């Protein structure tokens, strides 16, 4: 089918050939779909995102992206790489790594420049992302000297400046204050309305419902344990609890103590 953006078949990956990071991954992502990958630490979410972004390649199995087999051969052709990089953008888990330019401005225009956009488009994109993420005041700053939240916003801006059709986020809300989390979630929701395909890895369950229609749950054995519509998976408290995504929360209401599984931000009704 034409609207199939990614199709992974039996993908397997291990670091240095000895640390397994992904096993038997099968998934299909369609155009305009919002996907969330959830799972506890070390279950292979980031690894999968790097595979989707064509940065590493599976040991076994096949990745088809935008109708082409995504492998080293394909991306070593400059034209193909150019096409792929302008369509797929990845916001890394670690913003420190993603920001390597001496100023915020240079970091934001890095992608568009590398992809050879013309000056007018670059200027427009810059103005646009500064407005969307409200980071105009950071333009001349040195990226490394920003706070974690500011860095994250600049990292997102640096990917948005390319205006990719497919945006991949690796833990976009980790370590951010509630308002900034709100900002980023709103942003993803808006991008969804514009028809972008969005793939997000997170363990922040309370944003999953908003940013994803399809959820893949990754288990400790680096396999996909379950996949399905967001509501279905979020409902299954026992499964989530088994996978360290929610914890049993013991606390006392006036007079008696009880315990129940708990989403990190659910309000206690006492």
């Amino acid at each position, binding site marked *: 089918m034409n609207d199939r953006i990614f199709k992974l078949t039996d993908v397997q990956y291990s670091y240095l050939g000895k640390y397994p990071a992904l096993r038997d991954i099968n998934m299909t992502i369609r155009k305009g779909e919002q996907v969330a990958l959830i799972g506890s630490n070390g279950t292979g979410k980031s690894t999968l995102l790097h595979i989707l972004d064509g940065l590493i390649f599976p040991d076994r199995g096949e990745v088809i992206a935008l109708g082409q087999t995504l492998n080293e051969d394909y991306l070593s052709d400059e034209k193909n790489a150019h096409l792929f990089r302008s369509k797929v953008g990845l916001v*890394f888990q670690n913003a420190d*790594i993603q920001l390597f330019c*001496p100023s915020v401005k240079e970091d934001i225009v890095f992608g568009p*420049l590398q*992809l050879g956009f013309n*000056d007018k488009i670059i200027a427009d994109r810059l103005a646009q992302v500064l407005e969307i993420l409200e980071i105009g005041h950071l333009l001349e700053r040195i990226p*490394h000297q920003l706070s974690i939240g500011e860095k994250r916003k600049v990292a997102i801006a640096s990917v948005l400046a390319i205006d990719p059709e497919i945006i991949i986020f690796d833990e976009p809300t980790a370590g951010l204050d509630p308002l900034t989390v709100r900002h980023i979630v709103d942003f993803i929701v808006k991008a969804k309305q514009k028809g972008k395909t969005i793939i997000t890895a997170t363990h922040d369950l309370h944003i999953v419902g908003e940013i994803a229609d399809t959820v893949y749950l990754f288990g400790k054995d680096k396999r996909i344990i379950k996949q399905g519509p967001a509501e279905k998976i979020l409902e299954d408290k026992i499964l989530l609890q088994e996978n360290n995504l929610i914890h049993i929360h013991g606390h006392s209401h006036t007079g008696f103590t009880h315990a129940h599984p708990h989403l990190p931000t659910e309000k206690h009704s006492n």
Partner: protein
Amino acid sequence: MIRTTSIKNGNFLERSALSALSFVKNATLYEEFAVNKGFLQSLEPRIKTIVFLFFLITAVCLKSAIFIALLYLLCLTLAFCSGVPIIFFLVRTWVFIPIFSLCIVIPSLFSFVSGGQAIASFHALGIKFIITRQGLDGAVLFVARIATSVSLVVLLSLTTRHGELLKVLRNFKVPQVFVLTVSMCYRYLYLFAVIIENIFIAIKSRVGIVSHHGKGQHIVAWNIANTYNKSTQLSEDVYKAMLSRGYSGEPRLLEKFHPQLKDWFCLIGSVIVSACLFYMELRK
């Protein structure tokens, strides 16, 4: 409190960690002068590099310390016109100079290295040391050359953005592998400092203050191995991040290089200055 006193004493671990950090932080601060509005900053980077190259060759070829000193003065003036604080600049450059010169200059002062007319002598360790005129002249010339060359190079790097310098290198047909390596180094230098800082803080929070000398060094040894591993990982990660946004090995900058009339004047000016210095030296 124990904590404050041991920080004051500054044990091995803390001192080395802190100096490494401040060095790297300074290195990134360099860019602050490069983005200032000053004379050198306003020049077109390629022409500026050629001008500095001219001066550098002149400094190396001139045979009299006086004319080299003139060139050095010119360099200081340029620094001043470009908003680089003179004291900061002098410290920056003279820190490097002894490293280059001491080992070569000091021996050559004496009669057993460069023979000639004695101007001073003293006894030490039962040996008679004689400083010769030829030795002294040679040493002065040598120091002047080194000081001027180092200052020129430092001034160029202070007033030009790293990205611009790299692009200039590419323009001058320096191989891409080399430029890529330099740019990667620059890019993760800072991350490196952050890693060291984090490790340092982590150790401190886990074992309290590391006050025992031997233990401090032990941890450093372990850390060097650890940091090495991390740095390989880091260069890979940074490279991935660059790749992900379309990097194909060619540095590209927003500002295009456009030499203006002023740049050409500077180029001609530098040729004239060099020629004059050589001429005056010949006449002498």
